[in-house]
């Protein structure tokens, strides 16, 4: 850690991991409800568990992004953070708001929550991933703006690097596109447009810039490769991301009532979206192969490489699989989507966050890397989480293919629920893989408390 104020990242990272645990617990609950439908009913119905699972994902990712911003920006700008105090205040506001929201989801029925939180003043609730009550949404905007204000001023008073500029662009985009979630038109087509402009432009647009910047930062640190080389890659990757990602929004317009030509635009441009992810993988391996130093934090290197591979597989390959309109006609909204969602979110965003935390957390605790035995533990957690996620994806893909076959093809298609009974085996297997994933996550956390062996202290 080069600057004192980078320390504000620590609570953000800890909260992120804490919420990640919550996300996985609710994922396991849901996974079990897939096979035993009335598990925990009526305390936690499936729809609530699902909402908590996805919302926690978003919130912990935001916590980790902000932590990454607070850690990385002072080091890139070569100056102390503009206001560490503001960062800490915002941390508590965000954490309390997030916790209250989850309590709200669990304690009262969603409709009651909507009534209590002023949804009839400005109706924003009820849309997948954007279920947060109005005060939470306003809170997210305030926290995001204060965060952006803080790091933008830090960059302005210090050194301006490509990495911080790309990160700022991504984070500003994140805040701006979130504003679409405040508009909820009653026309269903328009509603879907605005919804996708938040959801798609986040995960297939500006979040990729954040991902690219975070990965580039960690790679510079652990490989010692020239900044210029890494920056050139970063620029090409983000240019490709934006071109394919923005017009690629069209792959969500296929069946929502948008004009037919979107089937062409959406198919062609989103088919190109794997390219930047592929380049990211090549980039990560290329930089590690050309490394000019042996950084003691081997675990962080493994995570960085893993992010490249898994984001390409999950977002690139599994996304491409069902992005062409004639294919999507059959696969839309099946377990194929769930398979893609799991591997893409884990491979791209969860893993880049874990990479960043794996690199930064030892630094924040005053050492350049954890001890050898702690790192061994962490690498075990890497393999457990990654391999079990691959299996979750494969099981869901198998379930999806069977589902399409039984429910949507042939002369005598089955009903939705009858089909679900037929794919039950895969849901059981998925739940088992989910338990293995949870073990991996516990090991990850444990690795930070492992006292065995000598930590590396030299910078």
């Amino acid at each position, binding site marked *: 850690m080069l600057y004192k104020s980078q320390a504000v990242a620590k609570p953000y990272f800890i909260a992120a991991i804490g919420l990640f645990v919550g996300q996985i617990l609710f994922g396991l609950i849901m996974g079990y409800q897939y096979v035993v439908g009335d598990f925990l009913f009526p305390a936690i119905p499936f729809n609530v568990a699902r909402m908590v699972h996805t919302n926690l994902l978003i919130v912990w990712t935001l916590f980790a992004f902000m932590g990454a911003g607070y850690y990385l920006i002072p080091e890139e700008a070569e100056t102390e953070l503009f206001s560490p105090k503001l960062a800490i205040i915002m941390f508590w506001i965000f954490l309390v708001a997030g916790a209250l929201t989850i309590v709200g989801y669990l304690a009262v029925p969603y409709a009651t929550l909507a009534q209590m939180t002023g949804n009839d003043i400005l109706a924003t609730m009820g849309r997948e991933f954007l279920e947060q009550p109005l005060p939470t949404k306003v809170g997210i905007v305030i926290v995001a703006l204060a965060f952006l204000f803080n790091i933008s001023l830090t960059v302005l008073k210090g050194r301006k690097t490509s990495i911080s500029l790309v990160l700022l662009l991504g984070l500003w985009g994140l805040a701006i596109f979130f504003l679409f979630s405040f508009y909820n038109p009653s026309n269903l087509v328009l509603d879907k447009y605005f919804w996708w402009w938040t959801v798609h432009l986040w995960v297939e647009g500006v979040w990729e810039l954040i991902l690219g910047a975070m990965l580039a930062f960690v790679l510079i640190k652990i490989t010692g490769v020239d900044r210029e080389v890494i920056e*050139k890659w970063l620029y*090409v990757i983000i240019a490709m991301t934006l071109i394919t990602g923005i017009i690629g929004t069209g792959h969500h317009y296929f069946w929502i009532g948008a*004009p037919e*030509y979107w089937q*062409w635009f959406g198919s062609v441009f989103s088919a*190109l979206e794997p390219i930047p992810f592929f380049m990211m993988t090549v980039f990560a391996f290329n930089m590690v192969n050309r490394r000019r130093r042996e950084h003691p934090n081997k675990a962080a290197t493994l995570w960085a490489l893993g992010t490249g591979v898994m984001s390409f597989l999950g977002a690139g390959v599994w996304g491409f699989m069902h992005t062409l309109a004639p294919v999507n006609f059959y696969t839309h909204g099946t377990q194929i989507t769930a398979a893609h969602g799991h591997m893409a979110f884990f491979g791209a965003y969860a893993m880049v966050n874990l990479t960043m935390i794996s690199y930064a957390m030892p630094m924040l605790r005053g050492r350049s890397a954890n001890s050898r035995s702690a790192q061994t533990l962490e690498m075990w957690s890497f393999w457990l989480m990654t391999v079990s996620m691959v299996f979750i994806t494969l099981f869901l893909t198998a379930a999806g293919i069977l589902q399409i076959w039984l429910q949507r093809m042939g002369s005598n298609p089955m009903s939705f629920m009858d089909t679900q009974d037929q794919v039950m085996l895969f849901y059981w297997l998925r739940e088992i893989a989910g338990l293995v994933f949870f073990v991996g996550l516990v090991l990850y956390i444990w690795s930070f408390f492992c006292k065995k062996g000598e930590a590396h202290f030299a910078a």
Partner: protein
Amino acid sequence: MPPGDLAIWFFIFAELLAFGIFFVAYAFARAHNVELFNESQQHLNIASGAINTLVLITSSYFVVRAVAAIRQNLARECARWIAAAIGMGGVFLVIKVIEFHAKFSAGISLSTNTFYMFYLSLTIFHFMHVILGMVILAAVMLKARSGGYSGENHAGVETGASYWHMVDMVWIILFPLVYVIH
């Protein structure tokens, strides 16, 4: 190594891939609907497409001359050739706008039929690339004029030139494919 910055080549290849997919999609969409495509195609202005091909080829040639000039360390001459190329780009845009205007005032839109969907999206997509190419060339021209390039150091000129040739190249296929072949 190809001329110019390696990064621009990744970009050029990605652009070629995007246009290539569109060209092939056009051809297969046509195969399913030959009569509609042949009928609609008759309403295109072949002369305007052909003139635009000549215009772009000529501007590409000017850019070649600009690269040749900077290699002989003639920065002012290089800037003048690029200015001429940008001028030809402007002519292309004007002719294209006249063509679009005629189509739009005839009530044609992306939703008219599959042929016009392809015709409009391909040409508009290419139109945007001409504009982007002109912006890149303008940046190169300004730097050349202020003495930013020399006989030894002119990768920037080659970078801009390579992108502009790509824009030309794509049109060389687009014109016969969409306007002529039936």
